[in-house]
């Protein structure tokens, strides 16, 4: 673009047509390259190298002995065929969709509702802060505590949740929280408890920083509360909500530890997510080649989604003058 502007105008002075980028006086040109080079090198070593390694073995019949003996053979896309053709993988994809819908999406919805309720209807500042802190507490816990705690709470025979529900009369019999068909819901409940605070916090802060002048104008125009919410607040929070959604969505693809701690994918693989299978096949069962194929498939799906998300984020940041 700049090039064409430059070349198309013959009237520009000779020094300009021939100029090269001037040598900066303050910080030599190699310095920024070196500053960025260090982290890039680290990431190449701990992210790119393993990814290539995984891709290499996804095309080979590597198992644990083979890996140590160096005896594994190229088998083309057989591992991928195994993975994609397997019921286990297809089942896990359905689980993933279930988790994304009720985990990630629902969390953003609930977080947004809570944030706006807190901002619009709770008038005392001290109360708001107190509620905010309480609601964010679960987010500060590691997955191992969350997993262990919820496994404890949901223990079917003598768990606190069943007992509490019995006491207030919502149920008559114990719910078998870790049976097939229920266990994934248990994981989702624990995850919602754990992470709803992220969209909540982000949307709340977004709402706080909306300019009050807009609302005064709306009040002068006599717009009703509901109209203000629908026509002003929600549209202006669109980007903020989208960012919260992006963060939860990409986290969902990384999600594996609660599955591992709470159910180990069980019973009978009924709560497995693709990432968990990759983890299980690679780490517990040492089917390296197949685990690698799982990982690469997950990687490819994430890459598409992440690229789309980052494109959107770039636009949002440009609009805010941040990038």
């Amino acid at each position, binding site marked *: 673009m*700049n090039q064409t*502007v430059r070349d198309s105008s013959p009237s520009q002075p000779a*020094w300009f047509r021939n*100029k090269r980028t*001037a040598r900066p*006086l*303050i910080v030599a040109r190699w310095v920024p390259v070196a500053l960025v080079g260090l982290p890039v090198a680290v990431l190449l070593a701990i992210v790119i190298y393993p990814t290539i390694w995984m891709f290499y073995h996804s095309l080979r019949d590597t198992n644990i002995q083979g890996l140590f003996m160096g005896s594994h053979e190229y088998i083309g896309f057989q591992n991928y065929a195994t993975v994609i053709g397997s019921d286990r993988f297809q089942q896990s994809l359905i689980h993933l969709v279930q988790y994304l819908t009720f985990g990630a999406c629902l969390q953003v919805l609930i977080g947004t509702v809570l944030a706006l309720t807190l901002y619009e209807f709770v008038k005392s500042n001290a109360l708001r802060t107190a509620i905010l802190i309480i609601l964010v507490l679960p987010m500060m816990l590691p997955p191992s505590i969350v997993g262990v705690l919820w496994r404890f709470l949901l223990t079917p025979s003598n768990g606190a949740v069943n007992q509490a529900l019995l006491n207030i009369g919502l149920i008559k019999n114990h719910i078998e929280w870790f049976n097939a068909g229920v266990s994934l819901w248990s994981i989702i409940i624990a995850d919602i408890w754990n992470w709803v605070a992220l969209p909540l916090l982000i949307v709340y802060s977004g709402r706080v920083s909306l300019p009050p002048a807009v609302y005064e104008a709306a009040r002068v125009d006599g717009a009703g509360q509901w109209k203000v919410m629908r026509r002003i607040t929600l549209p202006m929070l669109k980007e903020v909500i989208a960012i919260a959604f992006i963060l939860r969505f990409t986290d969902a693809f990384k999600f594996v530890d609660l599955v591992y701690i709470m159910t180990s994918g069980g019973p009978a693989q009924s709560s497995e997510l693709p990432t968990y299978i990759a983890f299980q096949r690679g780490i517990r069962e040492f089917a390296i080649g197949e685990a690698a194929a799982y990982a690469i498939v997950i990687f490819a799906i994430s890459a598409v989604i992440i690229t789309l998300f980052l494109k959107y984020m770039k636009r949002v940041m440009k609009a805010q003058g941040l990038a």
Partner: protein
Amino acid sequence: MARLEVDEICKGWDFPVIDELSFSVDEGEFFVIVGASGIGKTTLLRLISGLETPDAGRVIIGGADQTKLPPYKRRIAMTFESYALYPHLSVHENIASPLRARKVPAKERDRRVKEVARLLKIDHLLNRRPGEVSGGQKQRTALGRTLVADPEIFLLDEPISHLDAKIRHELRTQFHTLEDLRKVATVYVTHDYSEALSLGDRIGVMGAGGKLEQVGAPRDLFERPANLTVAEHLGQPTINVIGARLQSEDGTLFLRADSGELKFPVGKSNRALLERHGKEKITVGLRPQFIKPIEEAEDGAEPLTAEIDVFEPLGATGIMIANAGGVRLTALTNPEKHFEPGQTVTLAVDVDRFHFFDADSGVNLDRLN
């Protein structure tokens, strides 16, 4: 203390901004660069200070070529349009910064900061943070930071244009009296011609091409502008510019305005100049103060009938915009007299004060020969 020479300096990014621009400022001289906003004035200062590297050309300070010297090795003090104060440091620490950088002992540092602060009347604010003082006080702090540094060159970038009128005038007066500023070479950048005329020992007018259109003493620039750009930039209200044709009637030379009936005889003093130029089309400039209602004028002025469009009484003077035969003219009047729009007046035009510019290039005719 040193002389500053800027030698054919060039800088461009997507298009040329500074194009082979040269000037020099003597030790003790106050040089003002005036030009419209966004024309490259700040870039020029950044080139001199070393914050930007020129694409070509040299910056010579005290006889030494410092083009390749990083800014922290030059002894240049500069104020920024945004003040660029350190928000986390007190006013005292802000002013002391150049002294600390050059490892001046604490006691001496403190003495000089207080001295400068007293001079700038901010000595009662030394313990405050920049966020806690007014705009004018911020500018004084920024100024203090440059004054205390004892530099070879001062660069001032629009130092007072963001302040309100009263403080602006106060600080402008202060620039006249600050001894330190008057000892070294100072380059002062502004878009306000009155600051330029008031402060500058010499003025450079910067045009759109990234060059200085004209350099000279304030009176010189005002009375003998090198071209139309300079003439239009200096003076308020803006100079009247009339496109005209040269006509000869019965041996007398006339100027006839392109649009309308307006016709002026050419004064004796200018006749030779126009004849030498030899072109029929000409651009005529006339400052508003040389057009007056006939009763205020001295004898010998050319009378002209006009209809008043707008009249602005401004206290010390009045500005009249009138339509004379299809040409809009701005005139300065005595404020005691009042005029109504639509009223017909007779104006007197001092034809000897005309400036003549080449119709194509805008260059003043007396520069062409």
